[in-house]
């Protein structure tokens, strides 16, 4: 009998070990995300709220571009197009139909998915240079569409103002900037968890394969077209989400959101932060928004500085801020862990 008891005990300890191991894995998977967003939220103590809201939304805006550029190898110069789709869909709903900000954001995301599904099959077949050009063309077309062609509905350059129409929502009142910040951080956290999951999944590996060697991917039995289309839709619906959040946060939308002068913003921020890294977009957005804010305070002519900054960033470094910092941080973390004797694995990527 004691023999049976011993097995049970052994099994129990085995189960406990397994639970502990999986708990450790879960912690290892999540702690980077939690830390990143805790840091972002704690910036609230030092920095003004409008600036931080801008940074969080801009990060979500950039993460789609980062995924396309770093994982799938598509450079999308037309992200403002999908940003505008999300923003205008939310704005149309909030201006003409309802007044619930949550529903507005959902409408924006749905519109983003719909547009990406319509143009995606056409675009993802193209070579990467044509892909970049046609996306920029789409952004400019949407700019004209909103500024001139649909001026009856969009009020042209004046934009749609619906800030006063927004009803306060339950749980988190999105009409208040401080509540909106909490909401934006939560959404950002969810988006990042989703992208981190994608990176770990088979689909993420397929995306990377489509970037590196699409012939081999085909050889393995995957459809290049399907993978690229899925990635395209995912990335652009994230961008549309950012657009809808912009609309709700600002309470107005104008064609300025998709102006050709801002077309390179997400690409530049992606590269500034480090293309293909998970936290690059946050670091990049923080830096870029901060710089723009400071420069525009000193001089009206911020385009001049931003333009040459782009050139300088491109010539100076390819790996970006986070791409340079991350290996050093990893080394630091590993050294600290070696000191405490814990295993190292699943560091922040």
């Amino acid at each position, binding site marked *: 009998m004691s023999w049976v008891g011993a097995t049970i005990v052994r099994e129990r300890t085995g189960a406990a070990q397994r639970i502990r191991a999986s708990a450790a894995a879960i912690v290892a998977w999540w702690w980077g995300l939690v830390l990143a967003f805790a840091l972002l939220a704690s910036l609230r103590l030092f920095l003004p709220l409008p600036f931080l809201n801008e940074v969080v939304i801009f990060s979500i805006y950039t993460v789609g571009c980062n995924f396309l550029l770093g994982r799938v190898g598509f450079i999308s110069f037309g992200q403002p197009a999908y940003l505008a789709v999300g923003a205008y869909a939310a704005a149309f709903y909030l201006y003409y139909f309802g007044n619930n900000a949550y529903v507005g954001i959902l409408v924006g995301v749905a519109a983003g998915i719909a547009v990406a599904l319509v143009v995606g099959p056409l675009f993802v077949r193209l070579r990467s240079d*044509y892909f*970049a050009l046609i996306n920029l063309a789409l952004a400019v077309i949407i700019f*004209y569409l909103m500024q001139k062609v649909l001026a009856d509905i969009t009020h042209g350059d004046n934009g749609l103002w619906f800030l006063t129409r927004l009803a306060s929502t339950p749980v988190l009142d999105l009409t208040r900037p401080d509540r909106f910040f909490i909401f934006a951080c939560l959404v950002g956290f969810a988006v990042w968890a989703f992208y981190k999951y994608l990176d770990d999944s088979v689909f993420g590996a397929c995306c990377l394969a489509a970037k590196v060697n699409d012939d081999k991917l085909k050889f393995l039995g995957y459809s290049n077209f399907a993978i690229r289309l899925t990635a395209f839709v995912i990335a652009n619906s994230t961008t549309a989400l950012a657009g809808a959040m912009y609309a709700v946060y600002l309470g107005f939308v104008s064609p300025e959101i998709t102006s050709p*002068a801002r077309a*390179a913003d997400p*690409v530049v921020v992606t*590269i500034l932060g480090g293309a293909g890294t998970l936290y690059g977009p946050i670091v990049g957005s923080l830096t870029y928004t901060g710089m723009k804010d400071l420069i525009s305070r000193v001089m009206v*002519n911020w385009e001049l500085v931003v333009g040459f900054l782009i050139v300088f960033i491109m010539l100076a470094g390819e790996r970006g801020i986070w791409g340079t910092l991350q290996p050093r941080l990893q080394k630091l973390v590993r050294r600290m862990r070696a000191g405490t004797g814990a295993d190292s694995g699943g560091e922040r990527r």
Partner: protein
Amino acid sequence: MIGTHLLTSGIIFGLSIGSIYFLMTIGLSLCFGLMRIISLDQLLYYSLGAYVTYSVSLATGTLWLGILGGVLVAGAASRAVERLVFRRTYQRELTFSMITSFGILIGGVGIIKYFWGLVPRPVPVPIAAQLDILGTEVPVYRLVVIGIALAVYAGIWLFLHRTIIGKAIRAGIEDAEHVEGLGINVHRLFTITFVIAGSLSGLAGALHAPLIMVDPQMGLEVLAFAFMVVIIGGLGSIKGTLVSSLIVGQVISLGSLVYAPLAQMAPFAVMLLILLVRPTGLFGSALLKR
């Protein structure tokens, strides 16, 4: 539905717009063909050409001198940019040059705003005369623009097919490494091509200036149309650029006769249709990345 008068003037208008797009995009196309870069800063030389035309013609009173000045300044600016920036990007990926040149475009627009301000400026039309074609009065200046574009096309063709440098450039488009192996300085070819491209973009801006108001955002406004021309024609093909710029010009002009907002939308629809059939444009070969 549309009268003959309207149709004739519409076609002439389309031809002149197409000519300007041709001059503007041939630079993009040449640069892509030879150097495998996408040089968005061509649109900066376009605006620069227009602004110099404005200033010089205001100072001297003749537009033709202004146009000459615009072309020269655009060429000089493109040479400087090639020296300072593009030299460092030739070895990199294609998208790299695209972002860098976009930075130059944005920065250059900032410089233009700094020197000339935000207010749109009018440039007087040099030839006020009208010509009678099929009973329709057509502005002579537009015909002159079409003539200049045709002359440039012929000149480029002769340059590429009849001169040693032009032949070297064409060979470079086929295979740059082989050309280098023959002892030809490829980087000098790059500079020559880039300066030609920049000057032609400047010429496009200078010729366009009297037809529109000159304003700092003009380069960004034509950006979409430049892209459509390049995409429809196929990157790297000069014949394709000519054909597609004529198509886009006519689509804009005749489209706007049918329904005004079509002017902006119709070329885009045409581009999507053509891409459905031929993903690399009408004359674009399935060029490999270097």
